[in-house]
């Protein structure tokens, strides 16, 4: 069963097509890397998958369930989680509160209007933060931690929901070599029950982590295959090297 099946997906801004008839299939448990030059439509594709942007045409199925008409929040409840290219956290709140908010999102207790947030949410949040090596700073506000740690909180928030499909939008962007190593280890430790689709510019690092790679260019899939197939394809060289 495919974890993610996209067929004939289209999105245009004004007259400019950002995603142009994209079809692809990601198998359950697969690590899929999406690459392409700036403006290729990678983040737009993610925004269409999560429902942040409405599609113009095409269909999106999550484990054979058509989710194209679902709201963003409903897709999340179906097991789709994501991180953002631009860090999108709650800077005044602590790391554990950020992750607790993520856990609360899938709990019925999010509708509780007169109780307190049960302590177990914070305990669970600290356990998830421990998975990404941040338990020591769990009580600190997001605004007071380093950029690389914020990146790991982004991933922790997504992992806290135990997603079936995880979309990682440039998780290594702007990180030092040391931080890249830490984030890469976190991604590498994600269990195979979670299918991972990742956008990444750092080819040296990202190619190692992918089972299959999709190359996007001007909103179209131009190459898809294993690492060696994609690297050997002349269209990839043309896109990246211009010849």
């Amino acid at each position, binding site marked *: 069963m495919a974890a993610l099946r996209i067929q004939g997906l289209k999105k245009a801004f004004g007259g400019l097509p950002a995603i142009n008839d994209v079809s692809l299939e990601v198998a359950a448990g697969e690590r899929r890397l999406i690459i392409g030059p700036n403006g290729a439509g990678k983040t737009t594709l993610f925004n269409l998958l999560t429902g942040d942007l409405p599609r113009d045409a095409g269909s999106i199925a999550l484990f054979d369930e058509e989710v194209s008409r679902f*709201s963003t929040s409903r897709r*999340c409840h179906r097991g789709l989680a994501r991180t953002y290219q631009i860090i999108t956290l*709650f800077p005044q709140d602590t790391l554990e509160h950020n992750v607790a*908010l993520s856990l609360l*999102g*899938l709990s019925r207790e*999010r509708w509780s*209007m007169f109780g*307190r*947030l049960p302590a177990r949410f914070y305990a669970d949040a600290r356990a998830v933060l421990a998975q990404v090596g941040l338990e020591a700073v769990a009580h600190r506000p997001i605004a007071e931690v380093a950029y690389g740690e914020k990146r790991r909180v982004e991933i922790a928030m997504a992992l806290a929901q135990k997603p079936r499909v995880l979309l990682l939008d440039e998780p290594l962007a702007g990180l030092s070599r040391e931080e890249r190593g830490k984030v890469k280890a976190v991604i590498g430790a994600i269990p195979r029950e979670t299918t991972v689709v990742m956008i990444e510019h750092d080819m040296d690092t990202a190619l190692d982590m992918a089972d299959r790679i999709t190359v996007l260019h001007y909103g179209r899939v131009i190459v898809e295959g294993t690492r060696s197939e994609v690297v050997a394809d002349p269209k990839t060289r043309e896109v990246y090297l211009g010849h």
Partner: protein
Amino acid sequence: MKTALAVIVAAALLPLIAGEYYVNLASQIVIFAVFAASINLLLGYGGLPTLGHAAYLGVAAYLSALLYLKLHLAHWAIAPLALAGTTLMAGVFGLIALRATGLGFLMLTLALSQVLWGTAYRWVSMTDGDNGLRGLARPAPFGLNLNEAMPFYYFVLAVGVLAVWMMARFVASPFGATLRGTRDQPRRMSALGYDVWLIRWITFVYAGFWGAVSGLLFVYYHKYIHPVSLSLANSAEGLLAVIAGGSGTLAGPLVGAAIVLLLKNWVSAYIERWNMLLGFVFVFIVVFMPEGVVPGVRRLWRRYASRA
């Protein structure tokens, strides 16, 4: 908690040391504080600036007055009917206003309240237009006579404390945490599985309910209702009280309400151009404490304590 208890005790002791004029002024401050606190739910915790919240105060007051004058119902029946009717209206208005956020939301709330304000002015056969509705009476819960300043003050204080406590519980709850999340990162909240629109709508209705409660207290106090209660000026005063006191804090709207009411009622007795003074006070607050008086004083206190 200790500060809150101290404020309640001080407020309860006020009638023992202050004259009737000040007790009545304190009643008005508490009523306006409930109104401002309900606006704070939207502005401070939901990030939804409203310029139409007087609609709920005014409609609850008008419903109460009309049910009393036209249908001659008892207060025990009028109060829940007025609250239910106004809350229902808040539910419908929320469906319209929450089609937008930010300035769009502000304009929609303003437009909806202006429709009601115009209706109150022009539907003379029902509202007596610019004359307003008079001949109203205060309720007598459990046989208590609320016509004197002191018992009415204690009644208003009890309802006010209950209202602020209920709103405090609301914002401290898991739902309150999600509401603040929708204020700060609505897109992220959707991606985390939250129905951002529904969270905002529930808060809109809840704020409308407490706006309606302040409207009932308002009409009980004045025993009279006029279209100006539905006006833009009334909504704006509530909004300014929240901003001046400190939005997103529990104490802010209460302090802001006290500042506005004291300037309007007390200072105006001594200074002819009190409106100018009100303007200067707001300018002073915005320049020197842009986050509002309560967070501003906290900030100054922390600075002082760290130097000491």
